[in-house]
């Protein structure tokens, strides 16, 4: 199937069909309403055009149909709200998958890249700090934290396994961005100072994109990331390739030990100078 | 037909108000929304902040109390100025209006001492969001006080020439200036506990 065209992009998520269905229901409703209006409009214009012998009416009759029409629109909007929007939103925003079964990632946006943080084999994110952020450590991972030693950081590469729920914690370092996975029907503003969770689950593998949907500066247009849905084995293999090398971990551990032995007050800032 | 605009000095028979009175109240309604947005900002930032100092630990409550009393007194002198004018006593009007202007200046003098001592201790708007809120809210209020002083001074001296020609219109102007001045007082009545006492 074609991924992208002149309509909704391909949907590879488990929840997206609900959003798509809502979009199409509304558009059919809009089309019916508009075409009805428009035909009536054209007919009226033709029938009541000014011409010789045609006189306008002063006391127009009271039309009942529009009242029914307006009531119908109101009822339909209630259906849209109660039948579609509320439950879909609740499903997407409130009913998170089982945390134990899900893959956890952090996505930290910055001008103009997506930093992805995987917790590594221990399943726990190590400590991060804005003070540690620099070009080689854009996530500010504090490698003196033992839980951070196995953490994996990638830039503009979000890989996930297929058929596995993913919980992503979204935030931003600088300005507001918006984390948009068109094929996943996921879009969420990433706001500095806030951590906002989203979840999604892919039902199909493939190479897709992360897009930024909120104006974030002159590089907004090229703030593109790669979003790859892998078969589970491929994903495990890819993740292993991204993991820190044993010698890196050894260097971090040594640096942490050295920092801990010194009686200075600010070890966290000084520690990760191993690069 | 000449271009005379109705209801400048005499109230509209149906609405019962003059143009300037209605216009002034509409202006004050917009001011309610202006300060409303700033109070809203205060509430949002304070409730979203992990810790927020009590105003009295950082700010000078006795000075602010003095300022509250000054501003309330000036509101009374303002309304007395209007009442004197309604009793057609221009001399007393001058006395009360003059007091209002002086009290307004007094408020600013006290305020400047307060600001001065904050700056002396290197507390600036950039220090933290508490000081940012404090300086912005009191600063905007201070600008309103200055505007009121200018307006009242105008009505005290050159503006009062209108009294001889159009007494009703002048009385209406004094009442409008009074409404504004009371509103400035009213804003302070909320600013004072919110910033200093909580």
């Amino acid at each position: 199937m074609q991924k992208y065209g002149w309509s909704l992009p391909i949907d590879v998520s488990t929840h997206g069909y609900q959003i798509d269905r809502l979009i199409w229901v509304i558009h059919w409703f809009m089309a019916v309403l508009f075409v009805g209006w428009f035909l009536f409009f054209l007919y009226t214009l033709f029938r009541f055009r000014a011409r010789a012998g045609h006189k306008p009416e002063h006391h127009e009759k009271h039309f009942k149909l529009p009242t029914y029409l307006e009531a119908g629109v109101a009822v339909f909007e209630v259906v849209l709200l109660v039948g579609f929007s509320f439950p879909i939103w609740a499903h997407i925003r409130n009913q998170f998958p089982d945390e134990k079964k899900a893959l956890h990632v952090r996505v930290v946006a910055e001008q103009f890249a997506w930093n992805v943080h995987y917790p590594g084999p221990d399943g726990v994110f190590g400590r991060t700090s804005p003070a540690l952020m620099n070009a080689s450590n854009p996530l500010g991972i504090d490698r003196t934290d033992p839980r951070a030693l196995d953490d994996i950081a990638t830039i503009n590469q979000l890989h996930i396994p297929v058929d596995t729920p993913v919980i992503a914690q979204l935030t931003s370092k600088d300005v507001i961005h918006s984390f948009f996975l068109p094929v996943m029907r996921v879009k969420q503003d990433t706001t500095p100072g806030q951590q906002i969770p989203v979840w999604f689950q892919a039902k199909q593998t493939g190479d897709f994109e992360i897009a930024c949907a909120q104006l974030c500066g002159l590089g907004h247009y090229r703030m593109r990331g790669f979003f790859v849905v892998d078969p589970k084995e491929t994903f495990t293999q890819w993740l292993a390739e991204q993991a820190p090398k044993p010698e890196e971990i050894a260097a971090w551990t040594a640096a942490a030990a050295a920092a801990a032995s010194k009686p200075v007050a600010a070890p966290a800032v000084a520690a990760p100078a191993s690069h | 037909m000449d271009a005379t605009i109705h209801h400048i000095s005499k109230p509209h028979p149906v609405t019962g108000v003059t143009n300037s009175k209605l216009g002034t109240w509409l202006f004050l309604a917009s001011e309610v929304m202006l300060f409303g947005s700033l109070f809203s900002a205060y509430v949002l930032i304070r409730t979203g902040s992990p810790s927020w100092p009590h105003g009295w630990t950082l700010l000078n409550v006795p000075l602010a109390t003095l300022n509250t009393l000054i501003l309330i007194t000036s509101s009374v002198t303002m309304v007395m100025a209007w009442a004197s004018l309604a009793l057609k006593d221009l001399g007393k009007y001058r006395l009360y209006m003059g007091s209002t202007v002086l009290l307004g200046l007094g408020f600013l003098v006290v305020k400047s001492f307060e600001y001065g001592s904050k700056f002396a201790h290197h507390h600036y708007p950039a220090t933290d969001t508490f000081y940012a809120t404090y300086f912005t809210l009191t600063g905007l209020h201070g600008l309103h006080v200055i505007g009121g002083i200018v307006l009242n001074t105008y009505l005290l001296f050159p503006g009062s020439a209108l009294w001889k020609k159009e007494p009703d219109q002048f009385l209406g102007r004094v009442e409008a200036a009074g409404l504004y001045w009371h509103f400035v007082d009213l804003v302070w009545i909320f600013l004072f506990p919110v910033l200093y006492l909580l």
Partner: protein
Amino acid sequence: MSQTNGHSHPHGAAGHDSHELPFWRKYIFSVDHKVIGIQYAVTGLLFLFFGFCLMMLMRWQLAYPGQPLPVPFLANLFNETQMISGIMLPEFYNQLGAMHGTIMIFLGVVPLAVGGFGNFVVPLQIGAPDMAFPKLNMMSYWLYFIGGILMLASFFVPGGTAQSGWTSYPPLSVIASSGQTWWLVGMAFLINSSLLGSINFITTIVQLRAPGLSFFRLPFFVWAQFVTSFLLLLAFPPLMGAAVLQLMDRLAHTSFFLPTGLVVNGAPIAGYSGGGNPLLWQHLFWFLAHPEVYVLILPAMGIVAEVIANNTRKPLYGYKALIYSVVFLGFMSFIVWAHHMYLTGMGTGMSAFFQVTTMIISIPSVIILTTMILSLWGGAIRFTVPMLFALAFLPMFGIGGLTGLPLGLNASDIHLHDTYYVIGHFHYVVAPGTIFALFAGVYYWFPKATGRQMVGWLGKLHFWPSLIFINGVFMPMFIQGMAGVQRRLYDPMQYAHAQPTQVLNVVMSVSAWLLGLAQIPFIVNFFYSIFWGRKADQNPWQATTLEWTAPSPPPHGNFTSEPVVYRGPYEYASPDSKSDFWPQAMKEKN
């Protein structure tokens, strides 16, 4: 220009009253609502044209990304911080985007719709000699003018003008170059201008209606302006507050909108304490900016109602339903603002509340549109140029309104938010909607303002191409939006999901340039008719409302004698009257 036609001046005292004023008091620093209205309208039209030019430049980049402008003359207008050998830079694209929005809304449409038509028409339609506060009125215009000059000047400051979108979301806007400060100061002038204007309008409409002109005899246009003024009065101050806070953030380094731990360009931001919240701006901004949408659309609905009643030669259907709807619309517009913020991490409860209010607000819009279409039923429709524009407004606004539905429901908004779908939606409301209505107003009231008619065939030559090409510009945006193409992209070819719709960008851009060409008949018509147009009498459209009881153009003080109103605004085809219309101020049967 209101003095081009002297012959229709009545013999009364009105004429010589205005002769005593020197030129600069009469036409430049005038306190006459008609002159101020025309000043507003002309300045607004100029800004609309300027904002349109910014858009036409952007459309080149969108259709042919990275290619130099084909017209060397144009390319030479720009310096190396804007274009390099005719190739637009992304910074400059963002500046054009931000300023296109700002200029079209705050310097173009609102001044034309409210400042222009409101000022010129409202006192005439209520039978008043002028606005309640003429000097304040003059001050409104000059504050607007200064605001506009500041906005234009900001293009030339180092770093260029504002480039964080017309929405100016922090932290981006706080860390942006100095053009943003100019934008904020300019906005402060525009806000205060609108504020003074709205106080003036409300007071005028409440206090200065002619004898017999009760609220339920007011033309719908006056009602629309009345509600609009309340929106300006109560919704603009929070933006003023927000602008003050953003100025403090930029100039005094406070952190109202900056959270703790901001890292910009790889280093923790210096000189800011943090502790603020970027979403505070969005709440205060949209508290204004949603009612602002209705500020744009309500006067347009008012114009359309006037033109439709006049050109169907029958009363408006459901006049009272229209009024109740417009009041309800105005009221509700204050409590829907956060539907612009569904994807900011808003809680489920808040989001549900704002969805419900958003669905509720769609009902009066549907009623207004249905009522206006039903007004055509039973009429004898004259297809004059103002009527063509007013008729086109109906389906165009219909599209704009309907496409708001999927955006107003948060679940469908997830996919469509911040895509071209949104751009298509609000442009249908504002461009072929409001701006078409404004054109209807220009053609309709031109004879009143100048004493001359505009040329009919030139008007039709303006209308038909405009209608076709404006749909060519905005209709494809819905397809792009469905495909997920984000808004505010300098180069749409970067994304795989945007590439299949790139050909639509060419279609839209060519349509936009042709739309530009389609305005030439209007410009020619406008200036030709001021000087050489067919002379119009007092009531060329045979209309009922009070402005047509005054001479064309009305003298200082407007009416030869104070009008008295005997009936509702749209007494067309009345069986009690011998002619097919019965003016509000005419007592006897004619």
